[in-house]
């Protein structure tokens, strides 16, 4: 019985080299391309997904270590693209090239899941691992603050 992995609610067999990082399993095997390759070394955060709800750098996480785990990618963050962070990202016109933003949003979603009302310092500390070369940091900070307020209303 081969190992399986659950990606955005669907179960897939892990039928690749055990050492293959989750990033490449997602991108080249399942062809979920929303998760991006940026550095391959866990330095830039572009590849961030959730493993059982926790932000994880998929480029340095071997897929074989994730048997039976629930993976959420940007494509599965919400049913209709209406997670408070996704809405706040649009409201504040965060993306420029947009390449890093899936990782930014997934990282921020994990932050808010763990800490529903982060201080500015907590936001910055949590997001320090995610690089944006276009320089959208000011809007990222603002969007996370806005989303946190929205999430607080939902509870």
């Amino acid at each position: 019985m081969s190992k399986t992995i659950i990606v955005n609610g669907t179960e897939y067999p892990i039928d690749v080299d055990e050492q293959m990082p989750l990033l490449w399993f997602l991108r080249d095997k399942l062809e979920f391309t929303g998760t991006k390759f940026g550095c391959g070394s866990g330095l830039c955060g572009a590849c961030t997904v959730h493993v059982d709800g926790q932000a994880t750098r998929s480029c340095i996480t071997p897929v074989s270590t994730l048997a039976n785990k629930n993976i959420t990618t940007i494509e599965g963050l919400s049913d209709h693209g209406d997670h408070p962070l996704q809405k706040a990202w649009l409201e504040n016109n965060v993306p420029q090239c947009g390449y890093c933003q899936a990782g930014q949003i997934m990282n921020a979603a994990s932050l808010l899941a763990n800490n529903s009302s982060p201080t500015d310092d907590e936001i910055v500390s949590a997001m320090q691992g995610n690089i944006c070369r276009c320089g959208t940091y000011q809007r990222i900070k603002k969007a996370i603050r806005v989303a946190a307020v929205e999430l607080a209303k939902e509870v």
Partner: protein
Amino acid sequence: MNKHILDAMSAYYDVNPVDSTIASQPSTIALDNVSRRSFLKVAGIASSGLFMGVSLPSFAGSANKAAAGAEFNPNAFIHLSENGDTLIYCGRCEMGQGISTALPAAVADEMEADWSRVSIEQADGNEAKFGSQATGGSASIRKMFEPMRKAGAAAKEMLILAAAKVWQVSASDCYAENHFVINKLNQQKLGYGELATLAANIDVPAEPKLKSKDQYRYIGKALDRHDQGKVVVGKRVYGVDTKLPGMKYAAIAHCPVLGGTLKSVDKSQALKMQGVIDVVGISPIKHPFSSIGAVAVVADNSWTAQQAVKQLKIEWELGANAVYNTKDYKAQLVKNVEREAQLVTERGDIKKAFSNAATTLSATYTGVHLSHAPMEPNASVVWVQKDSCEVWASTQSPADIQKVLGQYLNRKPEDIKVHVMMAGGAFGRKFKCDYVHEAAVISEQVNAPVQLTWTREEDMRTGFYHSINAQHIQASMDEQGKVTGWLHRAAFPSINTLFDPSVTRPSKNNLGEIDDHPFGIKNYRSESGESPAHTRIGWYRAVYAIFYGFAMGTFADELADQAKQDTVKFLHNIYDANTNPEQQENTRRSKAVLDLAAKGAGWGKKLPKGEAIGIAVHYSFRSYVAMAVHVKVDGDSIKVLNVDCAIDCGQVLNTDGATAQMEGAVVMGMSLALATEITFRDGAVVNSNFHDYPVMRIKDMPNVRVHIVDSDEKPTGLGEPGVSPFAPALSNAVYAAVGKRYRDLPFNPLTV
């Protein structure tokens, strides 16, 4: 292939029909109404309506044509369907700068189109159809604003004429508003969709009437990026995301030294790995955008290909550039500018100015190589077949891909089909297409579509780098602190070296930005210092304005300090001293942004100990940007608190896009001012990834406030001009705070 990819591809082909070849228009024709029938015939898609090609006269090359390396011939397409849906193609390449929102919005505005009915597609590479698509030099808006407006205005006039025909009234009895034509006599309305086919048979007006500023519906407003909804759900498709049936994946190792050659490669271990298909050697061709020389591994996924590359045992003959060490080279550049160099431009009598001076001042400024490091590394998919070649690439210049692959394959450039994909950042790097050339070589070898994705390490080590540089300035002042003489020497490996390796110093054209700087100095001399290239030099966002802006903006502050004058007043004085009638607009607008930034920052206000505001202004790419940077300094720690950025780029198209460009320019300016440096040792780049090329992260983000001059002048670009004033303003702020003067970029280099 997975179903969601097939769906996406099918959707892609639905909106990107087989190339509808419209014969290229004579350059004097303003607009051409491609009839519905002929469009349908060639495009082969089941829709109808008004389809307009736009072809406008070529513009003369820009002043920095050699640096931009491209000509600019604007062109565009509008397709209005019978159901009212309006498709606007963006001919220029999108890399995050927002051009695919700003320009179509100008079309829609003049057309009186309902923005919610407009969809936008990136045009494939086709210069006969779209004019120049080379996207660089902050030129897209400057070149395309008026042609795009005319395209929209002509469409509107044709729709009005069509409605007038239906109602049998005069066109002057009708007007267009938000996707409808309205009959003034009885308030009857006809939708644009209803009129599309009729309008298609109407002659294109030669000189359509353009709106006045007060009539703008979208121009000058804050618009959302048209496809940002796709970004937040992971559905915006970048070059690196292309998937094709039967596609193979490649990874690559490049020759570490420019000009080196492959001695040997042992591929046995790599070929043993499961999933590895082939190992392919790539030789450079005679084109400056060619591969530098590399060995690639092809596999059934990217990761296996990357692992297999590590198993290759490659020996390179490194060649003459293996002597290159940037530490020594920069020291030599400093020597070369601190002694007499080659005369470039002379005005007045600099010797006399210095001998009559009340005071003199001199300083030397340096900067380093930079890697563009966009978040999406170089990647493309190429499929070379016997009678076709198709490319999917993040690129700033599809025509160069056509030329380079045409040269490599010995085919006509127009036979290379290039799909311009959304670039995950580019900053000048993706103007070059070495990574596409390589994918073509591999595809030809393995006879399949191939996706080549460079690793971050290869991307950082195989660049077209921003020039390492040194400048030395000497100035003389009279008793009143008026600058009477200015000697400026610059040495840096020029971008010209890429096209002509015999070049060993910056050209007169390369020094144009200092020779034509709007400071008013009567006695002036510029000199070019020896500075041959040992690596590939390319355009990096803001290009030479990075170091010219730094040296001039910092030196002006140093002069003000010596003259015991307030820097803003000193800058006013030096601009006011400019008596050249052709530069009066430059000085007026430079001073205006300077004052606006100063006002925004509260220039002159009292601040706590260790805090200060520095200011700088720079004119580049025909736009004016000033920045006032508020810092808090504690020992070596420099914390930027606020940046007030004032811009004058003429008529702004999208105020939100303009603001975003300035926020981004601050981030890029801060990275290069404080930290990023590419180091060469023995001819090869030492840096490898973001741990030793520390681009700015969120913790250092200051509060950026952007102040836009409300201007009726013709629009100019904003992609690059914001980068240059940051570093000098920061240097000036730190000096004002603690008395320490930084003259070398970056201020806090990492030892690698």
